[in-house]
């Protein structure tokens, strides 16, 4: 670009105007994208925080209420329940969603045949619209003619109420969610496994390490980084669980009401109070922000 004007004394002005022109051109290219970010990402972030200190009713202008929204949600008995349920969901989801993909990926990686099939099969549920998995499992869970109870009957085990009993509701939700989502983590582990140098295993074998010890002292240490990353990503994702409780147990079931369900409830069903919903969102954002910050820190150190 600078070819024509380089070195000529008269070139400075034309170079400056060229520079301005380039910048105008660049911002013209970016205008649409920047506007979308401004309207649907940056501005809502600021507005969300402001909203949590406001009362909004669509009749009069929003007005400041200080920390009233926060006091209101703290007083709501569902507040503690929602956080407890969310933590339980995240906890159980971690046990399944963290260990199962790890085990599956190690298994797939050892297979010399059908690898393509395993990869496709495990990721297929991830591709489906989440509502499909949830409604499908709703029929599996049906206490009357559901498939799961048929299987339990078949092997002589007691039947379960699945989503309809407070004892099993949460785990039933985790099962659907895990089924629908574990493919992503499995494939990421698989990619990491394939990048482990084969020499390491060879050397360990020559030193007389058994398969179990090779797994413990070669595979797992090599996966440490990706395990940490996926752990954080999963905490962030599962704390936002919504569709499973929304569709399977409803928005007013105290057994399964989660933080996201409560936000939805505040804004769109029972209370119609956007200020309370925003206050709850701010709390969720702060908690998730901590994990996001750790995630960024961890992945940046790696670079």
């Amino acid at each position, binding site marked *: 670009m600078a070819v024509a004007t380089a070195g000529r004394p008269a070139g400075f002005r034309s170079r400056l105007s060229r520079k301005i022109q380039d910048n105008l051109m660049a911002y013209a290219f970016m205008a649409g994208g920047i506007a979308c970010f401004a309207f649907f990402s940056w501005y809502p972030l600021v507005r*969300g925080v402001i909203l949590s200190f406001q009362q909004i009713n669509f009749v009069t202008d929003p007005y400041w209420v200080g920390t009233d929204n926060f006091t209101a949600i703290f007083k709501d008995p569902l507040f503690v329940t929602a956080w407890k349920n969310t933590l339980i969901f995240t906890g159980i989801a971690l046990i399944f969603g963290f260990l199962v993909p790890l085990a599956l990926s190690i298994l797939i990686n050892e297979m010399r045949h059908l690898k393509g099939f395993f990869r496709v099969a495990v990721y297929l549920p991830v591709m489906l619209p*989440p509502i499909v998995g949830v409604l499908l499992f709703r029929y599996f869970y049906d206490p009357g003619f559901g498939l799961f109870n048929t299987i339990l009957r078949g092997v002589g085990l007691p039947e379960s109420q699945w989503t309809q009993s407070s004892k099993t509701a949460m785990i039933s939700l985790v099962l659907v969610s895990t089924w629908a989502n574990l493919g992503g983590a499995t494939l990421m582990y698989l990619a990491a496994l394939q990048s482990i140098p084969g020499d390491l295993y060879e050397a360990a074998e020559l030193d007389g390490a058994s398969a179990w010890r090779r797994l413990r002292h070669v595979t797992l240490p090599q996966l440490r980084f990706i395990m940490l990353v996926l752990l954080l990503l999963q905490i962030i994702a599962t704390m936002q669980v919504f569709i499973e409780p929304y569709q399977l147990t409803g928005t007013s079931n105290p057994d399964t009401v989660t933080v996201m369900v409560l936000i939805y409830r505040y804004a769109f069903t029972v209370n119609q109070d956007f200020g309370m919903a925003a206050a709850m969102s701010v709390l969720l954002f702060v908690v998730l922000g901590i994990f996001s910050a750790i995630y960024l820190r961890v992945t940046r150190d790696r670079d």
Partner: protein
Amino acid sequence: MTIATPIRPLPATPPVAPAPRRRRSASGSGATRTLFSEVEISRGKGRFLYWLTLTLVFLLFLAIFIFPLYWMFSSAVKTPEEYAQPDPTLFPHTFVPETYQLAWDRMRIAKFFANTAFYALGGWLIQLVFQVAVAYALSKLRPIFGKVVLGLMLASLMLPATALLIPAYLTVTDVPIFGWNLLNTPWALWLPAVANAFNIYVLKRFFDQIPNDLLDSAALDGAGRFRVLWSIVLPLSRPVLGVVSIFSIVAIWKDFIWPLLVLQDPETQTLSVALSRLASTSQVPPTQLMAGLAIASVPMIVVFLIFQRSIIGGLAAGSMKG
């Protein structure tokens, strides 16, 4: 990995063709050593254990991941009577494929399917146009404050979408400055979808690798900025455009909570939201609902089977932070 794909100087070369061959030879027939060596699993007891494990894992995958889908497709063709039996039948004894037709017509699946397809394709086009423009400007025109703009965009990746749900919803009901109400319009899905920093980052990283000399020589030949983008950058970027395209279409097709909020008028709903609503009314026979679920899944299954390499490759690339 997709991002690091070397750029081919000849745009005419199909960019996807050589990749599978390479990958197959790398993972096939034990080119890389894993936990167990070839020797361990090809002789005596090891061989037996390997085949036993393979069979068990295969059956496990079949039962867990494939069976529910089979169940969905096959339940839809049962008669409602057979479907309601206390002991479900593994293979349908009755066969009424018309249920799919019925669901398509009566539940107006056709309408919701068309809605979703329209949202997905429109959203894909708009995202691509805006995101490519931003990435191209950031990568090749390098404006002042370009780094700040990119930083602000990337910072939004830290925001969980759900934290913005309420304020973003209010924004959609009354867009600042313009005062538009986008509720129940496609724009409510399309415009927020453009604000996807991940796509912009991936595109920019790819554009960064295209040598500037190539663009400069085109500029010397008299090509404008737009012409350079259209005739040089885009043809070279086909692989990355493919991955970004698939992910944006899939994302819109799968989205639930956002369309649930912004498309409250049943006429405008996506298939997912409509199915959720229909499932709660209990006026729909379960076999028809199953057919609806199956129909909602077909496009995603087809996309996945066709583009599985790009999807799985793109996923692995994303996880490794490019």
